[in-house]
C-alpha cells in the first residue's frame, strides 16, 4: 500500500525585485505556500526587507502523493493590521522539479522561480529550499525518478511527464509587454 502523503519541509528563503504596479514594494511582504485549497501555510511578515524581503522561514507540510504543483503566493500587507493584503506574484513549483529530478529527494535542494502577477507579467524571483523528509519506500532513486508510475528507467535522464506551466495572456496588453 503506498503511503498517502509525504512530509515536505520547505524553507522560504527570500524574494527579489517585488513591485506593485511599477513601484517597488515597501514592506510587510509574506508568502503563502499552498499544496491544495485546504492545505496552506504562511510565513512571517518581513517588515524591513522592502522589495527584497528575506524570511528564512521553514514550513512543514503534508503533501499527498498525487500532488502536481506547489503554489507560492507572495503578498504584502498594506496596513499595520493583517487586513488588506495585496497579491504581488505567484509561482508554481511542479513536483517533478524536485521529485525525480537530479537531486535525491531527501537531499536539501535549492530552487528559485519567476513570480508572475495577476496579469501574467514578470514580477520578481522567489528563492526556496526544500526536502522531503522520508525517502520513497522502495528506495532506489531510479524507481523514484519514474514518478512511481512504473514507466521504467528513463534512458536519457529525467523527463517531465507532461507538466506544463501556462501563463495567462491578458488581452489588454500588447504582446511584447510580457518580455520585460
Amino acid at each position, binding site marked *: 500500500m503506498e503511503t498517502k502523503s509525504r512530509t515536505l519541509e520547505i524553507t522560504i528563503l527570500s524574494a527579489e525585485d517585488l513591485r506593485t504596479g511599477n513601484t517597488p514594494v515597501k514592506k510587510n511582504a509574506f508568502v503563502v505556500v499552498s499544496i491544495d485549497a485546504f492545505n496552506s501555510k504562511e510565513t512571517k511578515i518581513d517588515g524591513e526587507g522592502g522589495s527584497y524581503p528575506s524570511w528564512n522561514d521553514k514550513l512543514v507540510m503534508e503533501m499527498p502523493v498525487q500532488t502536481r504543483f506547489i503554489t507560492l503566493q507572495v503578498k504584502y500587507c498594506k496596513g499595520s493590521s493583517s487586513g488588506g493584503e495585496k497579491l504581488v506574484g505567484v509561482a508554481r513549483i511542479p513536483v517533478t*522539479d524536485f521529485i525525480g529530478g537530479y537531486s535525491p529527494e531527501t537531499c536539501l535542494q535549492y530552487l*528559485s522561480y519567476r513570480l508572475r502577477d495577476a496579469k501574467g507579467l514578470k514580477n520578481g524571483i522567489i528563492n526556496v529550499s526544500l526536502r522531503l523528509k522520508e525517502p520513497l519506500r522502495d528506495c532506489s532513486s531510479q524507481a523514484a525518478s519514474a514518478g512511481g508510475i512504473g514507466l521504467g528507467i528513463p534512458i536519457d*535522464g529525467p523527463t517531465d511527464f507532461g507538466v506544463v506551466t501556462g501563463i495567462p495572456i491578458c488581452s489588454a496588453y500588447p504582446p511584447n509587454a510580457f518580455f520585460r
Partner: protein
Amino acid sequence: MGNCCSDVGGGMMAIGGTAPSTSAANQNDAADWYFKSRGIQGLFSQIELSFSATNLRDRDVFSKSDPMVVVYIQERDGAFTEVFRTEVVLNSLNPKWITKYTVTYQFEIVQILLFRVFDVDTQFHNVAVKMLKLEEQQYLGEASCALSEIVSKANRSLTLDLVQREESVPSTYSQHRGKLTVHAEECFSSKTTTEMTLKCLNLESKDLFSKSDPFLVISKVVESGISIPVCKTEVLKNDLNPTWKPVFLNIEQIGSKDIPLVIECFDFNSNGKHELIGKVQKSLADLEKLHSAREGENLFLPTLVGHNQNKVLKSKFFVENYSETVQYTFLDYLSGGFELNFMVAVDFTASNGNPRLPDSLHYIDPSGRLNAYQKAIHEVGEVLQFYDADKRFPAWGFGARPIDGPVSHCFNLNGSSNFCEVEGIRGIMMAYTSALFNVSLAGPTLFGHVINRAAMIASQSLANDAKKYFVLLIITDGVITDLQETKDALVKASDLPLSILIVGVGGADFKEMEILDADKGERLESSTGRVASRDIVQFVPFRDVQNEGTSVVQSLLAELPTQFLTYMRSRDIKPNS
C-alpha cells in the same frame, strides 16, 4: 560648508571586521594586496612545507651523512630556480628537518617543485647555510612533484623516491637512494569567525535637538598599549537604545580570544567630529560570558587627566547574540577527501573547418604545435587532474555524425558505446585525435545534451553521497543554436555540485554566449519559469596568449575554489562529514 561635499553616506557604513561566513572570502586583505601588487593573482593560501627523509645514502667514511634539502621552483620557461634551503642535520640517514618552506599555493597553475638533497662536507659545518656552494657538497639525490599533488593527498604528505640526475653516468651501485617525504600545512587554516549582535540601552543624548546617532568602533589593544581599530558598525539614527546589525570578527584578526578589545560608542556627526558617548573594555572571551550570563555592562567615560577614576555611566552594553563558526578552506575539503572531477566536451561542428586543412581549428599540426582545442584541454586538464583521484575523465564530442549514424549531440570521444571515460589527459588527447578522423563534422551547435549527461553523472554521485564536485569544460567555436534549450539544461543543473567552463575558440562573435554567464547578465530562466539557483557557468573567449602573464583560462580556473566553497558552505557540508 565644505562638509557638503564629504561622503556622509559612506561615513555611516559599517566597515572592517570580516565577511559573514556564508561568503567565500577568507584571505588576509593586506597580504592579498601585497601579492596582487606583485602579480600573484588568484585564490592564494600560504602553505608551509616540511621535509623528512629515510634511508639516505651514506657518503661519509667515519660517520653518517649530514644532509640538507635545497628547493627549486620551475619557472615559466622551464628552468629551475633555487628558492630555499633547510638547515643541515648532523650525522643522520633519516633526518627530519625543522626549517620550513613557505610557498603560495595557487589553484589555477601547476607549480612544479624540485627537491635536491646534499650531504654537507664537515669543513662547512660552521658556515651559514646560504653561503654553501652546492658544487662543493655531495649530491645525494633529487625528487620532483607538483604542489597540488601534495595538498590533494588525504594526510597532505607525499613520499617520493630520490633519484640520480639524468646526465650523470649510470652507476653500478643499486639505485636505492632513499625517500623524501614532503608534508604541507596551511599557514592560516580554518578560521574561526565570531558573529555578535551588540546593543546598548539608555545612551545619553549628545545632540541638542534630537537623540544621538550612535555607532560602535571595536579596537584591539596591542602590547604597547596602543589600540588599533578593527571594525565599526553602521550608524543608527536617532536611537538611544540601538541594536546594530551583526558584526563578524575573525579570531585571527584579533589574535586570540583573550586579547583586550576596546568598544567605543560614538555619536555620529556629519562634520566628522564624533563625540564619545561611552566605552567598555572586554576581550572576546569576556563578551561570550556577557552573552551567556545575559548581563549588561555599564559604559564608562574616561575623565580628564589627573583624575584616576573613570566616570561610570548609566548606559548599558549588551551582547545579544554570540556565535562562533569555523570557516573551512578549500584545502581543508581536499584533506577531507573531496575531489574535483574533470569532464570535457569538444565541438565537432562543421564551422570548425575540414580538419585536414591547416586553417581548420581542428588541424593536427605534424610539427607538434597544439591547436586551440588541444591547448584549452591541456591548460585546464593539467591543473585539474591532480584533484581527481582516479584520473579517469569522461570525454564527449558533439555536433558530428559518427561513422554509421545520425548526428549526435553527445557521443563518447573514445568511440565506445558503453562508457565515456578515458585515462588521463593523454587519454583525452588521443581520443580527440582519433575521433577527429572517425566522424564527419556536422551541426548545429547544441550544448543541452552534453550538459544533461554531465548533470546525470553529478546527480548519481550526489545520490551515492560521494564527495565529488564536477567541472565540465566545453570548448566550442561558435554560438549556440538553441539558446533556450541550453538555458533549460543549465537551470535544471544549477543545484548540483557542478561548474561549467565554456571556452570559445576561433574568431566568432561570442556576444550571445555571455548571456549564459550570470556575472555579465541576469539569472538564467528556463522555459517553465524556474530560475537558476546558482551561477554555474563561466564563459571566456580563448585567445592565443603567448606573452601575457595570466592566460584567460587561468583566471577562469581561479574562480573554481570559490564556487566549490560557496556550494559547500551554503549547504553546510563540512570537510569531515
